[in-house]
């Protein structure tokens, strides 16, 4: 049945002929593993196209939408983490494979005539692929991509003469913004991929014209299908497996504390939402120019980053333009050394140049990592890798290649090949694990002892390098904290103003900072502001049961009113402290507990006449205790008001400790229903915005000119921070002014 259908289709389209033309390629010398790299690159590129297209269905390029959409892909959409993870690691795989493919090409001498044009196409492809990496890095609009890409566009901006113009066109304006994203997005999805497809078709067509570059003495011949195709497919599958492994076990994401699938979730949910448990690519905190960030490029651009450090001031162009482009020109010229009798020289030169470039890049990468490593031993190790191990690896490779070129086919040559390959593998694995050890602080003890001999730096006298790297690590830790936090709060929804508002309006991030800035010079708060002297109460857990209960028994303590002129509660507490008879104390304390429980619930309104539920009963007990006339040593209501009843000598306790209560306390501390004119606290009010002028005038009449500017949003952030309410402040209805002061009876 199937064959009939195929025949029907073939008769009408002739597809078999096309397939044959594609698949029946002669491979002299037989299928070989070393021919797989090109196919692997093409495969990963296809993978990038598929995953990229899928990402396009959910990505939104825009200053206020990009981060949110990537967050949504990564954390909320089924298998979004997998698609994005494959795309992320796939891009890195392409860079690695590019290096390997290029190395294989020069070793085979496939850059030499008549294949020059294909070498040049390959270089163009490499440029386009690096362009994809650069543009793609910015698209999530997270801190990492935002700051790293700034470096790249600054380099463009430093070009002599045309720099400012080029930068402005690239960035789409004077600053990073909506048009930076739309432009980078257009380059990333609309310009570079089609360009690569065209170049790739030409690259493959020309490759087919000349065939694989088999050794001269190759014997026999097979067809691409199925022998080489099988090897190619296995290699592609292996790469796919590695990518999948990195996505699943690479652990670059931030796990969400709430909503992540657990062991009880269905297997499907565990897989579909694994992004919530930290699988997949990293998403840093939303881009925010007001936040510090330790900018570093993606690892495969670190060598360029390192190169910049050696050229400063006027010489910067040497590092940014001259050397990278010079290397490009040398690579471009390589095939020209292969004409006529120069061919062996051209072959040798190709290998030497490419090996030197790759080794140089690898060494610079190691040095770049070393500069960011605070541990002097690890730094030494990385420097040794850069200056000794990597050049040694390159030397062994060149030596082995030379030996293999000179030796005739036979047992001895095979033995040299095997021995050389083993040495290279051991060296490669060694260098890889050394880098891993240095980066993750897991260098084995024996190695540490050996390294210590070469390091003169003492632990208590850190060098400039160590201090700098320690500072860098600290900044990274802070950035990671922000990234973690952003991912936690984004689940509840992102303000339409953009994801940068998430942290700017997070009570636990921004609220904490604002508390220190506005409240911290008078009020203390455990672990946030601890440095004496203070002039007012400690606000750690203000309004909680513990806070109220301790305050009642010891209001004169410096934790409460001890540092202030407010002495109403001090006398009250002293009355309690004066009771010596424990028999009297017990009922008194039971009464205090009832009032405390009630107040800590920020009570508002009247109790029910016939309370039924335990909550209703407790509320009634607390209310009755507040208005209890039998308490001889200080009834509450003789100083405080509740729900309009009582005296306004002390603060009104309706909703005590709630957001509402704090709001009035902050905007009008001298209000009769707060601490009155006795209070030393200044009023915190918006200085501008609708109605601010009138409110400030009204305040001046009531309390003189004592006020500090504080915007509505900032105030709400401080209030939520104090109440441990970690919801992002979205701000719908502004609350700017206090209620009119009613004369209370």
């Amino acid at each position, binding site marked *: 049945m199937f064959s009939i259908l195929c025949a029907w289709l073939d008769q009408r389209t002739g597809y078999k002929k096309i397939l044959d033309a594609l698949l029946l390629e002669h491979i002299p010398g037989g299928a070989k593993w070393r021919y797989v790299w090109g196919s692997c690159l093409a495969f990963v590129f296809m*993978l990038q196209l598929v995953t990229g297209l899928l990402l396009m269905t959910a990505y939104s390029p825009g200053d206020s*939408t990009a981060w949110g959409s990537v967050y*949504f892909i990564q954390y909320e959409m*089924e*298998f979004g983490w*997998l698609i994005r993870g494959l795309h992320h690691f796939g891009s890195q795989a392409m860079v690695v494979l590019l290096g390997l493919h290029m190395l294989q090409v020069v070793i085979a001498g496939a850059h030499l005539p008549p294949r020059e044009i294909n070498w040049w196409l390959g270089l163009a492809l490499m440029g386009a692929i690096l362009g994809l990496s650069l543009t793609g890095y910015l698209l999530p609009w997270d801190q990492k991509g935002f700051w790293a890409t700034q470096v790249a566009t600054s380099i463009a901006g430093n070009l002599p003469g045309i720099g400012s113009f080029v930068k402005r066109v690239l960035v789409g304006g004077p600053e990073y913004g909506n048009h930076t994203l739309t432009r980078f997005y257009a380059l990333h999805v609309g310009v570079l991929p089609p360009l690569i497809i065209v170049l790739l078709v030409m690259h493959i067509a020309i490759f087919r014209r000349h065939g694989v570059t088999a050794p001269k003495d190759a014997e026999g011949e097979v067809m691409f299908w199925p022998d080489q195709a099988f090897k190619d*497919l296995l290699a592609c599958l292996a790469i796919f497996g590695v990518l999948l492994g990195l996505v699943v076990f690479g652990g670059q994401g931030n796990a969400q504390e709430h909503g992540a699938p657990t062991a009880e979730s269905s297997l499907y949910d565990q897989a*579909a939402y694994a992004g919530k448990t930290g699988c997949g690519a990293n998403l840093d905190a939303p881009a925010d120019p007001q936040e510090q960030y330790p900018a570093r490029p993606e690892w495969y651009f670190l060598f360029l980053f390192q190169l910049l450090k050696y050229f400063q001031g006027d010489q910067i162009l040497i590092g940014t333009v001259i050397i990278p482009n010079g290397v490009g020109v040398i690579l471009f010229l390589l095939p020209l050394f292969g004409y006529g009798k120069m061919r062996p020289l051209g072959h040798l030169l190709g290998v030497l140049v490419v090996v030197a470039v790759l080794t140089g890049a690898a060494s610079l990468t190691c040095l770049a990592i070393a500069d960011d490593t605070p541990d002097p031993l690890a730094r030494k190790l990385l420097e040794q890798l850069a200056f000794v191990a990597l050049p040694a690896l390159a030397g062994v490779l060149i030596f082995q290649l030379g030996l293999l070129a000179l030796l005739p086919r036979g047992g001895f040559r095979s033995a040299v090949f095997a021995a050389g390959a083993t040495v290279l593998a051991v060296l490669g694995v060694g260098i890889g694990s050394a880098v891993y050890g240095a980066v993750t602080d897991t260098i084995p003890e024996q190695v540490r002892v050996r390294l210590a001999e070469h390091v003169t730096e003492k632990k208590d006298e850190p060098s400039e390098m160590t201090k700098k790297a320690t500072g860098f690590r600290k900044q990274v830790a802070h950035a990671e904290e922000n990234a973690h936090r952003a991912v936690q709060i984004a689940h509840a*929804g992102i303000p339409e103003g953009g994801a940068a508002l998430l942290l700017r309006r997070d009570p636990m991030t921004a609220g904490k900072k604002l508390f220190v800035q506005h409240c911290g010079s008078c009020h203390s708060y455990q672990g946030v502001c601890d440095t004496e002297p203070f002039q007012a109460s400690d606000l750690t857990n203000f309004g909680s049961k513990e806070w109220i209960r301790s305050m009642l028994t010891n209001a004169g303590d410096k934790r409460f009113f001890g540092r202030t002129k407010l002495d109403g509660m001090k006398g009250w507490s002293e009355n309690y402290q004066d009771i010596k008879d424990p028999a009297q104390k017990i009922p008194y304390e039971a009464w205090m507990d009832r009032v405390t429980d009630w107040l800590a619930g920020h009570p508002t309104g009247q109790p029910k006449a016939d309370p039924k539920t335990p909550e209703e009963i407790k509320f009634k007990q607390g209310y009755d205790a507040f208005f209890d006339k039998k308490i001889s040593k200080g009834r509450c209501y003789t100083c405080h008001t509740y729900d309009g009843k009582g005296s306004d000598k002390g603060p009104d306790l309706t909703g005590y400790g709630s957001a509402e209560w704090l709001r009035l306390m902050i905007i009008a501390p001298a209000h009769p229903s707060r601490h009155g004119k006795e209070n030393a606290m200044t009023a915190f009010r918006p200085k501008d915005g609708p109605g601010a002028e009138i409110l400030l005038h009204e305040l001046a009449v009531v309390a003189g000119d004592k006020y500090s500017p504080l915007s509505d949003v900032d105030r709400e952030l401080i209030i939520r921070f104090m109440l441990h309410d970690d919801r992002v402040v*979205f701000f719908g209805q502004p609350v700017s002014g206090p209620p009119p002061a009613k004369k209370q009876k």
Partner: protein
Amino acid sequence: MQRRTFLEWTIHGLGALLAAVLGIPAIAYLIDARNRPSRQTGMRTVAKLSDLEIGVPKEIVIRETRQDAWNLHPDDVVGRVWLVRENADTVKAFSTTCPHLGCSIDRSENGFLCPCHGGRFNLDGKRVVPTEGNNPAPRSMDELPLEKGPAPDYEIRVEYKRFKTSLDQPVEDI
């Protein structure tokens, strides 16, 4: 089995495996919209009885919290309703969405008129039975659930809903 056949079948098999590992998650990802929660509806206070004049329809905007993929809009417009106070006590609420093809229904001299294809309705929302020409509206305007609060404010509360268009009977569109 011949070596060649074996290789071919293995290539096809492994290729299919690869396609499945990538394809199944890709499909799940593409149809992920099925997991987005439907609009949360409930009774919302939209006006007071005293705001409404007898026999004069009033257009009211309905605001609700709206979750749009990653964005949360705490106070967003989700739709509009026509409130018609028929007499001292009764008020009716109609969706402004035309039951014909979803345009927005406007006032007319003595009732409602949809500006797109000319659907006509009486002041009580009933489809006008045409005496001449035709009326493309397949049914009367969609009435929304409405509650009237207690004295003295008599707050009018409405639950906003969407209905499928072009059907003879209203069917809620979830």
